[in-house]
C-alpha cells in the first residue's frame, strides 16, 4: 500500500541534513565491519533499505560499502542480514558513537 495523499508544502530535507541533526562522537575504530566480498552474490540486500542511518551503499561492481560513522547502533543490519560473516557488529568505544538529546 502506498499512501496517496496531498503532499504538504514543506521542504523535505536531504538525508545528510536529516542525519546531521543527530550527534555522533565518532571513534577512530570502526565498530561495525562489513565484509563486502560476502555481499557480492547477495541478491536480497535487506541492509540497504532497512538501515535507518542509510549506511549501506551499493557499489558499481556489485559490492557494498559500509560507513560506520553516523550509526545509531540499533542492530537492524545484523538482524536482517542473511549472510553469515558479512557483518561484524560491536558497540563503539565507551563514550563514543551516537549521543541522543531529545528522543
Amino acid at each position: 500500500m502506498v499512501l496517496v495523499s496531498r503532499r504538504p508544502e514543506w521542504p523535505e530535507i536531504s538525508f545528510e541534513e536529516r542525519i546531521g541533526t543527530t550527534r555522533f562522537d565518532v571513534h577512530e575504530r570502526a565498530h561495525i565491519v562489513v565484509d563486502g566480498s560476502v555481499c557480492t552474490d547477495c541478491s536480497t540486500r535487506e541492509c540497504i533499505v532497512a538501515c535507518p542511518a542509510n549506511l549501506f551503499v551499493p557499489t558499481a561492481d556489485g559490492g557494498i560499502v559500509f560507513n560506520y560513522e553516523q550509526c545509531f547502533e540499533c542492530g537492524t543490519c545484523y538482524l536482517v542480514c542473511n549472510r553469515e560473516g558479512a557483518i561484524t557488529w560491536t558497540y563503539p568505544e565507551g563514550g563514543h558513537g551516537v549521543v541522543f538529546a531529545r528522543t
Partner: protein
Amino acid sequence: MLLERGPFAGSKNMYGGVVYPRILDQFHPNWWEEVPIQRWITRRSTMVLTATQAMTVDFRTQAWGEPPYNGATAYRPDFDHWLAGKAEADGAVLVTSTTALGLLRDEAGRIAGVRTDRPDGDIHADVVIACDGVNSFLAKEADLFGPGQTEAGNYTVGVKETIALPKDVIDERFGVRDREGVDIEILGGTGGVNGGGFLYTNLDTLAVGVVLKLPALGAQPRRPEEIIADLKAHAAIAPLVEGGTIVEYSAHLIPEAGRSMMPRLTTDGMLVAGDAAAMCLAAGIWLEGVNFAMASGIYAGEAAADALRAGDTSAAGLAGYERRLGDTFVLRDHEKLRRAPGLVLSDRVQHHYPQMIANVVERVFRVENPRPKPGFRRIVREERKRAGIGLRDLARDAWAGIRSFG
C-alpha cells in the same frame, strides 16, 4: 556499580513514546515534582489509517493531568539521566563512557563480573545485572536465549523524527494547554510494512515516527525515512506536523514478541532486566517498556541484595527476582498478553481490518439520498468480503483478541 557506555546515562536511549512512572511511588513519593518530563498525557488517541481515510478513537481525561498522573512524554536522555542521578544519590557508583565487552567467569565457570573496554577494566562482581539493552550481548554470551528467540522476526525497528514547533502552535493544533499532552498511536500508515506509527507531543517538539517489522522492512523498497515522510504527508497527519523543523533523528530496535522471546532471566551470578530481557510490552493498545525496565531493574536489585545477604548468588539464591516479577505486573501483564504481539502484527490486523473498519464507517456516515440508509449488518458483511476477510478468520481473530486482551 552502574556501567553506562554512553557519555551520560540516557545518551544511547531512544523510545517511541510514553513513560508510566508510578512504579517510582515506593522510592520517591511525589516524584512528579522533579521528574524531567515534557507533557502529561491527558489525551490518548488510537488512529486507524488507510491511504485516504482515518478513524480515530480519542479519549481525554483531566484526571491524568493531576498527581499522581498516568503517563508522560519525556526525552529519554533527560529522564534516564535523572534516574541515574537518583541511583547515585542512593549510593550507586556510576561509571560512564564504559562499554561492557563480555562476562568474566571464575574457575568453576560461574559468571563473576564483566570485562569493560577501559584499560585495567575488569570488574569482579558477585552479581551482574545485564540491562544492556535490546541487543544484550551479555545475555547472548550467557546463552540464555532459546532457539529462535533472537530471530529478526521478533524485532521491530523504531525510527523517529523530533520536530520543533512553538509551544503555542502545538497547544493549538492538539487542543491542549500548559503541560497537557497527546499520545497518538497509529495502525496503518507504514507503507505496507507491518508495524505502526506514532505521534507524541513534547513541550516544544513533536515526536513522529514508525515502528517497522524487521524482515518485512528489508523485503520491500521503501526506506524508513521515506515511510515517515509518507506518514507525515497523510491528510490526517500533515496539518499536525507541517511547518516544523527536524531537530533530531533517531532509531532503536524494539523486542516486539513479548513473553515468547524472553530469555532465561536468571543464571548463576547474573540476572537479565529491561530490553535485554525483551520486556517491552507491544500489545497494540498498550505500548509500554520504560515501566517494565524500571520495575525489573528494581526487582533485580532487590533480589541481588537478598542473595548477597544470604551469601548465595547462584541461580537458586537469586530466585527472588523471578518470584517478584511473577507476583507483579512485569510477568503477569506479559503472560496475559503473550498472544497479543503476534495478533497485532498479523497481516489481517495490519492491512485488512483497518481497510474494512474505515470503509464501514465511511459508508455508515455517507448520506446518499434519495437512497435510504443501508443496514449496518449489510455494510459490515459487504466490507468484510471486499477486504477479503473470511468469517472463520474473523471469528478466530476475535477469539484470539478476547483471549489476549480479556
